[in-house]
């Protein structure tokens, strides 16, 4: 099965300038945006699932990236969201640096393999420095999507 991250990320789930500076507020901003665009049915439950994960692990993976994620039935299908923060958000990354590129992934509980594959693909994609640089410079959601499409394998 070939999973394409770009197929699960919609332009309306992309926030080019995140306002929040703190982790829980940043998650709320992402979730609220997804609720507003009807990608998530139960925003409160979804946010609780994400916060629970954040307490157990550092989803800030270093190099200015955070990938908060959760499996929860608050979502109906595998979904992705993206936010960019100029100031950075403290996601307790192991390198101590704030996260500027924040990708959120969620899937229903019964879609574990898709969820794991999406996390793996995204992590591999974001290890590429040139992709991180392009995402930092992108000027609109369509450009973000094109960068992902061009660089995912």
């Amino acid at each position, binding site marked *: 099965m070939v999973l394409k991250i770009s197929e699960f990320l919609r332009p309306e789930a992309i926030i080019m300038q995140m306002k929040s500076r703190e982790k829980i507020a940043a998650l709320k901003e992402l979730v609220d945006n997804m609720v507003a665009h009807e990608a998530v049915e139960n925003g409160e439950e979804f946010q609780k699932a994400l916060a629970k994960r954040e307490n*157990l692990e550092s989803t800030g993976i270093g190099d200015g990236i955070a990938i908060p994620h959760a*499996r929860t039935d608050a979502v109906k299908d595998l979904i992705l969201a993206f936010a960019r923060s100029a100031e950075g958000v403290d996601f307790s990354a192991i390198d101590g640096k704030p996260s500027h590129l924040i990708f959120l992934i969620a899937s229903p509980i019964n879609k574990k393999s898709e969820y*794991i*594959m999406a996390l793996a693909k995204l*992590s591999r994609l974001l*290890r590429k420095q040139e992709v991180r640089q392009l995402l930092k410079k992108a000027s609109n959601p369509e450009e973000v999507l094109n960068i992902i499409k061009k660089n995912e394998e």
Partner: protein
Amino acid sequence: MKIKKVILVLTDINDQDITQAAVQLCKRFKSKLFVLFVVETGRISRLARLTQKKSDTLRKKIEDEGWQLLYLIEDDADKAGIWTSLHLEDGIATTIVKKYIDAYGVDAVLIKRKNEATRLFVSSTVPVIGL
């Protein structure tokens, strides 16, 4: 006995069979779990020669499998209430593990019993547990 921070070292998708034991050990000792998958550069060259496949293709496959394994472990550890931190690095496992021991103050190394474990047993400054 206290083991605050443990590093589980993986170099191969076949190392999956030791992950449950690692999670159980962390649960028992209430340890934080660092999970490190090393994409071994030497192994990729050897595999490329043996299989006649391109190194780059093999690297992508191993890296993808590595990330999948890391997130599978995280999912298990999460259910057990264990704090985790995932890492994927390119290079030589023994060298990278030593770097992690120094950087994060790891108390013990968990590794599958094979050649890398033997090398770590003799050179590590913290206990190495072969699973």
